[in-house]
């Protein structure tokens, strides 16, 4: 096998001081599927962004076919035959599949875009690579797996020989994943080279020829996939043996804390995103919501927490109807919320750690004297939470922006967990953070549960939602399609079938989730 791509001595330091890559060497052979694995935050995505020209490295050089290339922008990368499918798709939702695929390289006729030609191109391409898409469908109406195919086709049309896939399976169900893998094998047989970023080891074992493992921004080893076991890989990734199982006792559910009754919601684009959603969360239990992202979970959380207006239905917290309560009133009643996107809702990045820790309680008597705030108490609380949640920082005055993703999430979690909640809503609580922080957050959630807090957990990470939840509901197309009273009896494949909408429980089965 011939070396096709070489990245030599790459160092990348972000403006906030985080060193994402430290003298990384990375090499890919022609015609292989090369897995790039590592924890979240290990620097995989950064390395690939450098290869695709989205980030400039501080040091290092890139060679393609032995000659040095200077990749200053994605345009240059594409010219060099590199294509990238991002974790978050870069498609225009209001355009059709064909229009998205030809965007920027439109076929023209008399100065106008030749739409018929565009459809033709898409069909040919789709056939050649065995990636079936409907050229005339609107991208916004497509399921996630389909969008991904469009992204791959986009890259192929632009002449990509090296295809970078950034965590392509993170948003897919088990069934869709299998389909994707078949397509990738097909591409490989056609002579394409694929870089596959992932931290799901089973998939990596299944699909890749070779593996590069990254940890803390460094390359810690390159192996033939057949030479290493999953255990070996995970040890290298994390630097120690990982306990994949989350330890917890059986839950002892108490009274119903949150009762959601017949929630319906139409979003700002007139699409029905929630249909007759009813469920209850009891104290002392973790109710998980599984489902492919974009099936109503976000809107549901926003409505319960008060960020979104409720159209139809009822929210009852400890016997009180809270439909019209403001966010502040809901918080006062004991709702805590770990938001999906920590940088948008979770923190004020340019505020200090202390300022971020008190945002839900700064008006309370204990932090205020007559006019001025009691800064000593604020500092004490901050120091205490920093210690308790092991937030790595210089001082409570440090700006949140300067922290790593895991530590930023710890700031959010520290605030939300320490407010003595009755109901905790955790939406993707460990997305994109390292294993250490993940473990800490999981443990704390279980601690809260054992203290009698009702926990509603939303996670796109199947592993997390299955390990952490006591019982589980599945959402598809804005509806609850399944309820499992005891998660330990559910398999991933079964869950996948519900998440894809292939299966649906009867109304009676689903209604079991309503406890009076």
């Amino acid at each position: 096998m011939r070396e096709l791509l070489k990245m030599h001595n790459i160092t990348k330091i972000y403006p906030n001081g985080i060193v994402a890559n430290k003298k990384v060497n990375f090499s890919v052979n022609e015609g292989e599927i090369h897995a790039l694995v590592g924890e979240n935050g290990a620097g995989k995505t950064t390395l690939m962004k450098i290869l695709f020209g989205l980030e400039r490295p501080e040091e290092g050089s890139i060679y393609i076919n032995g000659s040095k290339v200077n990749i200053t922008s994605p345009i240059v990368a594409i010219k060099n035959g590199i294509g990238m499918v991002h974790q978050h798709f870069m498609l225009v939702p209001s355009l059709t599949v064909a229009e998205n695929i030809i965007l920027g390289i439109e076929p023209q006729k008399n100065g106008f875009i030749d739409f018929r030609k565009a459809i033709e191109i898409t069909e040919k391409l789709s056939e050649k690579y065995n990636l079936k898409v409907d050229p005339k469908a609107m991208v916004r109406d497509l399921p996630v797996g389909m969008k991904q195919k469009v992204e791959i086709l986009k890259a192929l049309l632009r002449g990509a020989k090296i295809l970078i896939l950034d965590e392509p399976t993170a948003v897919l169900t088990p069934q869709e994943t299998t389909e994707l893998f078949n397509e990738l094998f097909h591409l490989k047989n056609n002579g394409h080279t694929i870089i596959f970023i992932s931290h799901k080891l089973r998939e990596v074992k299944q699909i890749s020829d070779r593996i590069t493992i990254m940890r803390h921004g460094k390359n810690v080893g390159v192996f033939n996939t057949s030479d290493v076991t999953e255990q070996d890989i995970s040890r290298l990734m994390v630097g120690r043996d990982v306990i994949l199982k989350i330890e917890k006792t059986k839950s002892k559910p108490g009274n119903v804390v949150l009762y959601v009754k017949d929630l319906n919601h139409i979003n700002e684009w007139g699409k029905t995103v929630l249909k007759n959603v009813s469920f209850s969360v009891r104290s002392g239990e973790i109710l998980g919501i599984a489902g492919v992202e974009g099936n109503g979970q976000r809107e549901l959380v926003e409505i319960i927490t008060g960020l979104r207006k409720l159209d139809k239905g009822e929210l009852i917290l400890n016997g009180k109807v809270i439909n019209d309560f403001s966010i502040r009133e809901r918080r006062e009643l004991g709702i805590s919320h770990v938001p999906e996107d920590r940088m948008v809702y979770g923190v004020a990045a340019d505020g200090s750690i202390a300022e971020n820790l008190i945002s839900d309680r700064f008006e309370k008597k204990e932090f205020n004297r007559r006019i001025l705030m009691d800064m000593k108490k604020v500092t004490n609380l901050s120091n205490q939470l920093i210690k308790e949640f092991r937030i790595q920082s210089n001082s409570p005055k440090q700006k949140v922006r300067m922290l790593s993703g895991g530590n930023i999430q710890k700031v959010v979690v520290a605030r939300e967990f320490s407010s003595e909640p009755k109901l905790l809503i955790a939406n993707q609580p460990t997305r994109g953070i390292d294993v250490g922080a993940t473990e800490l957050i999981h443990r704390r959630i279980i601690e809260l549960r054992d203290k009698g807090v009702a926990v509603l957990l939303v996670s796109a990470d199947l592993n997390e939602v299955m390990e952490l939840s006591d019982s589980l509901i599945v959402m598809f197309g804005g509806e609850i399609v399944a309820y499992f009273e005891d998660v330990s009896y559910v398999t991933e494949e079964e869950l996948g079938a519900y998440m894809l909408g292939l299966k649906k429980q009867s109304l009676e089965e689903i209604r079991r989730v309503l406890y009076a």
Partner: protein
Amino acid sequence: MHKEVLFEMMRTLVAIFISLIIAFIIIFFVSTQPTEALSKFLIGPFSKIRYFSNVIEMSIPLIFNGLAISVMFQANQFNVGAEGAFFMGAVAATIVGITMNLPVGVHSIFAIICGGLLGGFLLFIPAILKTKWNANELVSSLMLNYILYYLGIFIINYYLRDVNAGYMVSYKLNSSALIPKLIPGTRLHYGVLFAVAMIVIIYYFMYRTKWGYAIRMTGLNEKFAEYSGIRVNFVILYAQIIGGIIAGMGGAIELLGMYTRFEWQKLPGYGWDGVIVAILARNNPVLVPLAAFFLSYLRIGADLMARMTDVPSEVVSVIQALVIMLVAAESFMAKWRHKMVIKQAKEEISMANGGNSR
């Protein structure tokens, strides 16, 4: 964090330095007596107590407007209505000064309070438009300035105009309303003490009270504030009302300290200068007096230069514009900052490596 502050100060100083250099180049081209002009410009304000006092006098309205704008900008509200609020604050003080008879001291303070209340009420208008109907506060406050200007002129002209004065001014204010001079022989008045007090009050308000905290969090990330349960709309309202109060008080103090009757025929422009001051001070109340002093110094220096040499005072506008542009340009010196970050990160790496080998 400390380094960040230091870097920002460095950046501002470099921006000032570059714009001064460019101004000097311009002076060398347009003047037949460039060295003379330069020395008047740079050292002139220090040459006499009266000139230096002029610098301080002019700083006072700049401080008030700078503070007003800072508070509103910290809430991320680009309300530029300080100009109109300042103007109307002076009108309110004129009304109180002419129509009422109160003891010395009480009269001034009452007039200042009236100016502040009027200013607060006026900037409540763009604020409520924003929270109720999401009207852009920049546009509505900009328009409001013109309305307030004509309203003020109308009030003075039709009700308070002194027909015997020969030009368009109000009656003389009762002397009990005027703010006395601090240093005899200069125009420096007790208003400077109000300005200092205001700086301290606003600093404590912004950084030590829950209301200031809410303003800052709303400004840093409105979604975060809302998510945390802060009543964002209420914060947006009171931040602008407070801005209006500060500007209105500033207007009243300026009138009572520097004039004996209302003489402005057009907007004095201090509200706009407040924007410049706030940008230079990075919306930090503590830095506002420095920025105000700097701007005022430039103005007085340029004025002296224009009076005594052949260089027009407009040169100052060039400097101002350049400083603002360079300071506002986020990426100005970004490479330098990035180098700083890299250096620090590398030090940390080598330290960490050293730690491992031990």
